[in-house]
């Protein structure tokens, strides 16, 4: 059994969980301290009934209800104090976070322990997505206050397409150890 830990179940992470639900011999753990907001249901795999609830607990309920799929939940913020406990035994870390500080924490831990780590990242305008392994990943700074946030429903198709390629990269890695990456943009998908 391989353990996949998905950090962040917002736009990308919530869709990735349901895309990889049928991978054989895989245990899924999700980490996120946020709660579902009304605006999230426009672009994330969280139902309207989950508004106000913990994202990971809502995810757990949705996966159980729709797919009878067990998911282990951690409704806490990833910090320097708990990163060893939460990520230490993962076979694969999938970073779907939306803040540079937390991404940095994941990256430093994965590099220090030479762990497989895949990152998913989206532009604010919903016109560029990255599926990239840690060896090549540079963390982009967040926009200033008032900047676009890629949270509107109009970006849903692009978010889902990026999440699907994250799931494909995960599948290829589990099957043969490959580390394939992708960029998604208005011109299509490029293998990196």
């Amino acid at each position, binding site marked *: 059994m391989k353990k996949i830990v998905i950090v*962040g179940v*917002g*736009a*990308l*992470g919530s869709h990735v969980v349901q895309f990889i639900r049928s991978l054989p011999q895989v245990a899924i753990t999700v980490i996120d301290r946020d709660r579902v907001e009304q605006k999230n249901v426009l672009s994330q795999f969280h139902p309207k009934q989950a508004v106000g609830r913990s994202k990971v607990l809502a995810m757990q309920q949705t996966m159980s209800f729709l797919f009878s799929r067990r998911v282990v939940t951690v409704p806490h913020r990833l910090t320097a104090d708990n990163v060893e406990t939460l990520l230490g035994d993962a076979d694969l870390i999938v*970073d*779907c*976070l*939306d*803040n*540079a500080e937390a*991404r940095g924490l994941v990256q430093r831990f994965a590099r220090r322990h030479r762990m497989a780590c895949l*990152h*998913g*990242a*989206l*532009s*604010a*305008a919903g*016109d*560029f*997505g*990255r599926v990239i392994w840690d060896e*090549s990943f*540079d963390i*982009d*700074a*967040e*926009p200033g206050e008032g900047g676009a*946030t*890629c949270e509107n429903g109009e970006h849903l198709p692009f978010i889902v397409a990026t999440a699907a390629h994250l799931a494909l990269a995960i599948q290829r890695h589990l099957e043969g150890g490959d580390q*394939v990456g992708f*960029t998604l*943009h*208005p*011109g*299509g998908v*490029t*293998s*990196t």
Partner: protein
Amino acid sequence: MNMEIRQDEARVNITWSGQNGDLPDTVRYDCTDADVLGWVTEALRGGTVPGIAGQRLVDLREHVVDRFPANLNRPYNLIQVRPKTPFG
């Protein structure tokens, strides 16, 4: 696009303002990020990037230059000029 790309060259792909295209000409793979951004800015202003409508006001300060060496799936070096991707 149908161009010969040598080992020391790269194709430059640009995502700008919700549009995407390649520079018509290859560049040296080891050129600087500043060079790439300068050439791309001029091409976007001139409307010479197939797939991207020309615009006089082009500001790439919030864009990033990524480099990907050739591999089995893509037998040429690739340089991508892209918007920042802080979200997940």
